[in-house]
């Protein structure tokens, strides 16, 4: 006791630091396979207390598990109820989602450990398998849920987009191609027989109207809403459309968190306030909704998970805006230096993801447009001079994005 008193008196700061780190370390170590099992933990280089801090950052508090068991039990009960209805399908779904989570892990680790094309392609093959498995499970699920719905149509990812049979001759296919710039060959993009589920039932607006790509002026955007991340923030601040269109954007949003966050909303008159996506969609009726999301989640999840989340967002937009044209904007590429130095944020992955989301377009009321030809060189790399950080356009280069939007708008083709 005397010794401790002496220690405290002599080394106060050291003692306080040691005393405060002790509970954090214990919490981290005890929770490492429970509360914090989702976090990577390498004790050799990382103290246990980092787990607690990462948890706090993600809203997982150490005292959280005191309340957790109750919730889990409730969930369990609910799960049992529904299990009676769903029988084996539910379990299958769970298994698949678990698998897809583990695949994410593989992809991230593989991507982090090496930037070599070999490893990246292995990871993407993994993603492909998951995609397939998951797609099938969705099919089964909807069959089980509603026998009246006709069998979900799935088409190969490399099929022609749109519905060629219903588009009259003379109207060009209004969906832009997701350019691969020869950096990704088709075999790599869609390993073996990857199938993207194109069940867009409920997303479609009225039939019978056909559109084509054509040039427009600024007034076209008077009823447009742009949803996106910091790149769209830049478009709002430095583009020429800010006086016409409405914007809903914020730094660091991605398809996984965009629905939960409050974003900065700027309406057509230039007034701004915080809004969630849902609030902004309820606020008024838009003629066009442009979506540009995808750069923040390049290191998160697989391409298929990204695609699925993107699709959920489109479904939400369609729910609130049944008559709007939806534009999927392909992810803008990054510069060559950035692409080469980053195992996740590179143009190969971007091409792959653009390809996946381009399949969500249907050529009737959902379109895929791609600005990359306006800002990239022949290799598909963002031109270095146009960007200060290799990821965002410089203020002086937003004019190119504006131009791509104005030259590639959907106009009615009677």
């Amino acid at each position, binding site marked *: 006791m005397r010794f401790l008193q002496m220690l405290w008196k002599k080394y106060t700061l050291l003692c306080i630091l040691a005393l*405060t780190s002790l509970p954090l370390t214990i919490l981290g170590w005890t929770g490492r396979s429970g509360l914090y099992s989702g976090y990577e933990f390498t004790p050799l280089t990382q103290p246990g207390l980092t787990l607690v801090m990462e948890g706090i950052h993600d809203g997982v508090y150490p005292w959280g598990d005191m309340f957790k068991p109750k919730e889990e039990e409730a969930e369990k009960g609910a799960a049992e109820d529904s299990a009676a209805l769903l029988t084996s399908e539910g379990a299958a779904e769970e298994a698949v989602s678990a698998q897809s989570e583990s695949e994410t892990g593989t992809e991230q680790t593989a991507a982090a450990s090496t930037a070599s094309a070999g490893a990246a392609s292995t990871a993407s093959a993994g993603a492909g398998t998951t995609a397939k498995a998951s797609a099938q499970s969705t099919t089964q699920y909807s069959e089980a849920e509603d026998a009246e719905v006709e069998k979900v149509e799935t088409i190969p990812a490399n099929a022609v987009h749109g519905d060629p049979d219903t588009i009259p001759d003379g109207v060009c296919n209004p969906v832009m191609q997701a350019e691969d710039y020869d950096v990704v060959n088709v075999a790599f993009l869609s390993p073996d027989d990857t199938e993207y589920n194109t069940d867009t039932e409920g997303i479609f607006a009225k039939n019978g109207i056909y559109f084509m790509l054509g040039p427009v002026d600024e007034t076209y955007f008077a009823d447009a809403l742009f949803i996106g991340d910091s790149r769209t923030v830049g478009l709002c601040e430095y583009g020429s459309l800010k006086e016409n269109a409405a914007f809903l954007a914020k730094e660091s949003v991605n398809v996984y968190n965009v629905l939960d966050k409050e974003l900065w909303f700027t309406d057509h008159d230039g007034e701004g306030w915080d809004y969630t996506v849902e609030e902004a969609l309820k606020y008024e009726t838009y003629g066009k909704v442009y979506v540009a999301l995808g750069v923040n989640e390049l290191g998160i999840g697989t391409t298929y998970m990204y695609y699925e989340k993107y699709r959920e967002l489109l479904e939400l937009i369609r729910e609130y805006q049944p008559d709007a044209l939806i534009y999927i904007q392909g992810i803008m590429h990054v510069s060559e230096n950035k692409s080469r130095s980053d195992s996740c944020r590179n143009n190969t992955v971007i091409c792959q993801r653009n390809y996946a989301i381009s399949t969500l377009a249907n050529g009737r009321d959902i379109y895929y447009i791609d600005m990359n030809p306006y800002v990239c060189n022949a290799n598909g790399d963002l031109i270095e001079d146009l960007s200060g950080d290799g990821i965002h356009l410089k203020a002086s280069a937003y004019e190119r994005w504006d131009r791509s939007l104005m030259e590639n708008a959907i106009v009615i083709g009677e």
Partner: protein
Amino acid sequence: MVLFNSLFFLFRFFPIFLIVYFITPARFREVILFFGSIIFYAMGAGYMALGLTVLTIINYILGQMVFSADKGGVKEKNKRAFYIAIFIDAGSLILFKVLSGLTDKVVLPLGFSFYLFKMISYQADLFRGEITRRPDIIDTVVYFTMFPQVTQGPIMRWNNVGFEKRERTVSVKAFNDGLFFFVLGLGMKVLLADPLSTLWNEIGKIGYESISTPLAWMGAVCYSLRLYMDFWGYSLMAAGIGMILGFHFVVNFIHPYWACGIADFYRRWHATLGAWFRDYIYIPLGGSRKGKLRTVLNLLVVWVLTGLWHGITPNFLIWGGVLAVLIIWEKFVVGGLISRFPIIGHLHVWLLIPLTWVIFAITDLKDLLIYFERLFPFFGSGINVNTGDFMKQAMVYWPFLLVSLLLCTPHWYRLIVKNRRKMPVILILTAVFWISVYRIVISASNPFMYFSF
């Protein structure tokens, strides 16, 4: 590179090293320090640690030949060894600087500019007879390689940290003070310098041609503060570690932004580097004792070399040149005025130093010119400037700018240092430590935090 502000250093390397260091009997502690330092260096620089070891041994051997026990005259033999040593040290420094500047294939080894300067000063001190006791091998290798200083300085001198008299004492007081300075430095680096870096990157992201003039000035101030908080913070951490291990505190920054004039600023900024150039270049060249013309020439030489030491791109040359001109201007033209009205000296520092840091920061000359056009908009107009950009950034970054500005005045710092053993300050430091660790954890688990789009 193992940074002091990394989790691995804070929670693995440093505590384990300290335990081993303190349970080892005092006379073997240097050996532990040497091996710990080599491990530390190798973890950051890999096989370059071999280069450091070889250079250390060569310098030790040559140093033994340079050292002359009898005070009187320098023998031919000593002279030859000294020239060989300088040739090897300065030669390899110049060679690597030039090669790494010209090609991407050669990388300047970690801390190269710092430890080679230490080696040169060691040989010069031996040659001049300023080191009176023959250095033994363990002191020498520890001096060159010690991990608190090997990667980013300060450029500690043999005589002023207790090597000369072997007066190294581990004490409770020194340990506590060392820990205090370490945590203080950590906070400056993580909680101030890093957010300010984000602001500076934000300006690059917009593109210099499109920033408003107020934002351009905020950028210049921001970069000046960032560099200060980063480097001062680092120096405090290094000095703190040194104190914990039993060395003297190495002074590297003496409130430079409180200086009266540019020359005064550089006596206070990165003081160990300035003193090195003064003692081993400026004074041997004759200093200011050989007439006005030679003084001007000597100042130019020193500042051009200082510029090149930082990097061999043209902007560093301009940076050094501009500083030389400013210092000459102060010395010969407005010197009297400044001593009568110190405010002129302060204004020099507050207005001109940030501008020189802009030259320091922007390596591309075309971009540099554009930035100056935005600082002084009568030379040209920007492209697609958003006049609201200043307010947007100011709203986010004002707390970091404000606290950094407060730390530029000596008063706040002195107040904290004076009360460092009092409970409120200890509690504040505890908070600083944990918030810093939290920031480090979040940025480590999310390496793209600073690039959150």
